[in-house]
């Protein structure tokens, strides 16, 4: 039987691939959960595009400082050794290639590593991009965390994105509830798959043509309960 990861397990799995000493930006939403699941022996410095390097855990209820919020506007804390700076300097870090990893959500990822995560292109929706294009274009590695398919079962890893692009050819790896997939020169390569899923099963849920890594392993994560979120 297929045993897909839950959201916290997906976040945990991403966390395992972040080397100690990395400078990392976590996008809004599921990417933010990654910081809850870091191995204890690794120190990672989190960057927040509104001007924080050394972002700490979410602020405890009642101890919020509303001058210290995440890009998602949640009250947060800063670690010893943090730095504050302005938006221009913050994006100089992002765009100058100084972030080791950006962990981002996705609507679609193409076989060539194109990312679509800011707009569904639907008429009538208000366009809004935030820092998504800067992060996707600027970080040295872009990790995507996303369910393998949409709620309707449509594949999200596809030959070409149909939604408006965030950036072309930038995705390094995709971490889904079913697999870990690296975007190689010749397209997506499956590095890990959950137990009970055959390669053909995974391919059937994927739009782009997959390659199975000869060293493909079982995608495993410990049992994890859902992270608590700040109410704002």
């Amino acid at each position, binding site marked *: 039987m297929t045993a897909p990861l839950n959201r916290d397990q997906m976040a945990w799995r991403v966390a395992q691939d972040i080397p100690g000493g990395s400078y990392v930006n976590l996008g809004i939403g599921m990417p933010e959960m990654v910081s809850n699941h870091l191995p204890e022996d690794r120190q990672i410095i989190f960057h927040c595009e509104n001007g924080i390097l050394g972002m700490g855990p979410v602020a405890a209820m009642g101890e919020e400082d509303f001058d210290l919020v995440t890009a998602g506007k949640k009250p947060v804390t800063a670690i010893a050794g943090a730095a*504050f700076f302005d938006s221009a300097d913050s994006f100089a870090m992002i765009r100058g290639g100084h972030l080791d990893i950006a962990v981002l959500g996705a609507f679609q990822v193409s076989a060539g590593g194109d990312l679509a995560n800011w707009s569904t292109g639907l008429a009538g929706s208000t366009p809004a991009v935030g820092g998504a294009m800067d992060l996707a274009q600027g970080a040295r590695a872009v990790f995507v965390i996303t369910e393998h398919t949409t709620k309707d079962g449509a594949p999200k890893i596809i030959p070409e994105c149909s939604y408006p692009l965030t950036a072309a050819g930038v995705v390094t790896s995709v971490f889904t509830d079913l697999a870990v997939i690296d975007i190689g020169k010749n397209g997506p390569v499956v590095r890990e798959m959950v137990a009970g899923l055959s390669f053909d099963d995974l391919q059937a849920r994927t739009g782009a043509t997959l390659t199975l890594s000869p060293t493909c392993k079982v995608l495993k994560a410990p049992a994890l309960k859902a992270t608590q979120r700040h109410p704002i």
Partner: protein
Amino acid sequence: MSIDKRVPSLEDAVRGIADGAVVAISGFGEAGNPTELVHALIEQGAKDLTVVNNNAGTGRMGLAKLLAAGRVRKVICSFPRSAKSVVFQELYKDGKIELEVVPQGTLAERLRAGGAGIGGFYTPTAAGTPLAEGKETRIIDGRDHVLEFPIRADVALIKADKADPFGNLTYRKAARNFAPAMAMAATLTIVQAREVVGLGDIDPEHVVTPSIFVDRIVEVSQPISEAAALLQQVSR
């Protein structure tokens, strides 16, 4: 005659802002919003404004209130869509306001360029996306770049933590965000500071916005916290 940029009231601070002005307003979400200056601008009455801000107002205060008052013709921002941006979204859906969406880093860099006398710059951000449509592109070092032009503002409304009479500024934590770049990019930079301190009370090493970028200072010692107000609503 020693230099002193303090003005006695919010009314004095926003005096003379013209209809049709480009007004840059600091803040990211709810952190660093010069809410009192924006409310004073509503009182002052300028209309047909173009507003530059990272967002497009949340809740019902500050920028959202300025939008609701019908004073804004156009918003230049990176992220106008959030659950709390109700005022903007209604106006936008009704076709009552123009919107220019700019990637957040490009927005910050365009403001800095406006302040730093840069005529234009090439960035890979947005290359190959709909936000580069109609823009000049160029391949540099094998990579697609988009040519972006500076944003200059007639007025910047800025929230600072401390200010001295010359106009040297410090900020608090992530409330700094767009304020330094906007202070540089505006012809008239108006600051609401939580505390006005004496000359020499800000260590020259710790000044974030040097006085050359500041024109008027008004002390607002207990500014409204839009975020705290929103939290109270959520908690209710």
